[in-house]
């Protein structure tokens, strides 16, 4: 194999694992005891049954480079200490394993005997690949669109506005109230709401569902016509500068419009990137409230601001827990509170909650055509979980999961309906005139 990795690329990549002030990085790079317990927690390994898919092996790709360049034992006796050169072959394996065979779902962390933060190290590996310019093209295209246009699908503002106005007209017809609306660029509102661009582009009914809930709650809210994108694929491609810029778009826009509460639309990684990572990217504390739309709906229910009739959703419903909102976001109980208030017949998958399996489309996988076949293969685990519940509706507060579940539904002929939480809640709304 020819080595196309330049010394400059190598130096940049090694700098990422050379920060001796980062105690978490140092600890986790040195922590794996190779017990193997993580193997059976990983969808890729469970499906493909090949050693390279074991989470510990993915971690080892990163830590073996660390040993080669940052420990004297690894530098002197590389084969003895399983230390690897950072060369073309290693990079090819890293791209294939860290981008192409990990959704960063974190299920392995729950099953790790000593609690190694495996997705954290996978992310470090991705950062190394990003500085070397080795991010898969399709994933980078999604980040580029967000950086260059303000949203990850490159939707021009006038087309966005046209769609919102169309949805607003339909909403006003349905509610028979001209005061209802989908508000754009309004300053000083209590709620600054955000969307996944796939909503305006292809699936706008979830926008009107949420508008209906805001209407019922008597909320003062707005969308921005320019910066409404809740996603941040910079969290996945490993380019922290791009992730920072994308987070800054929302941060600056909520300030420009003097919004009080940043409400993150139904998006797992976007919520995580903006809520937990954002202050680190931007090196600042937020001076506004940040919460997910699931928590906001929960608040409306508790405060009696909306009334729901759960018998309006009488079909069997199961919940798909998005990894970035449940295992890594703390929404386990809140999702259940909201879904059980909106549906009469809710059953759980096995396993569920913090031990739930990823949909298979996380970690940027949905955007990476290169690994489509693997994504659908591992999705079989989710398909079987859903089938076992006998549910007719799968509800999930993440548009990325919705898209993967739609493909799984089609591929494995599940015959289910997939809804966002807002759509389920809107169907149960009792609006008193």
């Amino acid at each position, binding site marked *: 194999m020819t080595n196309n990795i330049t010394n400059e690329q190598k130096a940049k990549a090694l700098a990422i694992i050379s920060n001796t002030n980062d105690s978490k990085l140092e600890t986790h790079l040195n922590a794996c005891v190779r017990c193997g317990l993580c193997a059976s927690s990983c969808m890729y390994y469970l499906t493909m049954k090949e050693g390279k898919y074991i989470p510990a092996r993915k971690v080892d790709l990163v830590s073996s480079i660390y040993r080669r360049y940052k420990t004297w034992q690894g530098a002197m006796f590389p084969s003895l200490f399983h230390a690897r050169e950072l060369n073309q072959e290693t990079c090819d394996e890293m791209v294939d394993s860290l981008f192409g065979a990990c959704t960063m779902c974190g299920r392995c962390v729950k099953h790790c005997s000593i609690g190694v933060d495996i997705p954290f190290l996978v992310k470090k590996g991705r950062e190394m690949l990003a500085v070397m310019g080795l991010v898969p093209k*399709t994933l980078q*295209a*999604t980040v580029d*669109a967000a950086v260059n246009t303000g949203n*990850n*699908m*490159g*939707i021009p503002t006038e*087309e966005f506005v*046209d*769609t919102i106005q*169309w949805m607003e007209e339909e909403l006003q017809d349905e509610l028979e109230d001209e005061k209802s609306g989908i508000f754009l660029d309004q300053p000083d509102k209590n709620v600054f709401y955000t969307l*996944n*661009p*796939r909503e*305006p*582009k*292809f*699936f*706008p*009914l979830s926008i009107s569902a949420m508008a209906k809930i805001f209407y019922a709650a008597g909320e003062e809210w707005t969308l921005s016509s320019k910066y409404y994108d809740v*996603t941040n694929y910079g969290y996945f491609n490993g380019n922290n500068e791009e992730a920072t810029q994308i987070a800054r778009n929302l941060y600056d826009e909520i300030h420009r419009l003097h919004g009080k509460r940043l409400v993150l639309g139904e*998006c797992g990684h976007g919520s995580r990137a903006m809520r937990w990572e954002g202050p680190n990217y931007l090196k600042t504390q937020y001076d506004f409230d940040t919460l997910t739309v699931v928590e906001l709906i929960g608040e409306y229910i508790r405060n009696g601001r909306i009334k729901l009739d759960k018998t309006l959703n009488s079909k069997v419903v199961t919940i798909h827990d998005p990894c970035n909102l449940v295992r890594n976001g703390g929404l386990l109980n809140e999702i259940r509170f909201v879904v059980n208030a909106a549906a009469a017949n809710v059953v759980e998958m096995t396993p569920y909650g913090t031990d739930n399996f990823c949909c298979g489309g996380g970690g940027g996988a*949905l*955007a*990476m*055509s*290169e*690994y*489509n*076949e693997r994504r659908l293969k591992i999705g079989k685990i989710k398909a079987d979980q859903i089938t076992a519940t006998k549910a007719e509706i799968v509800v999930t507060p993440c*548009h*990325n999961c919705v*898209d993967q579940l*739609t*493909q799984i539904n*089609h591929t494995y002929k599940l015959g289910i309906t997939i809804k966002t939480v807002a759509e389920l809640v809107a169907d149960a709304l009792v609006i008193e005139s």
Partner: protein
Amino acid sequence: MATLEIQGKTFEVDGDGFLTDPSIWNEDVAKLFAEADGITELNDKHWAIIKIIRDNFEEKGNAPMVRTICKETGLKLKDIYELFPLGPARGACRVAGLPKPDGCV
């Protein structure tokens, strides 16, 4: 580069099964791709959607908003989701021979 074989014909596609070279698309390709998705016959409504998507792509280089598809064809959103069960992107745009749109689709 992946290939997709449908009824003895081979197409160069990306990993998601979208045509690599949108310019080789024609109506026969659309029929074959649709059939691979379980749509056995493309009716007038399917063709109307496909035409809007192609026209938009040729004019602007990307997929139209679903708003444009509804406005130009007079179809309801519900109809579009029923006609193409995989949705406007993975369903209709793929049959229309477009590259896969970026983002969560």
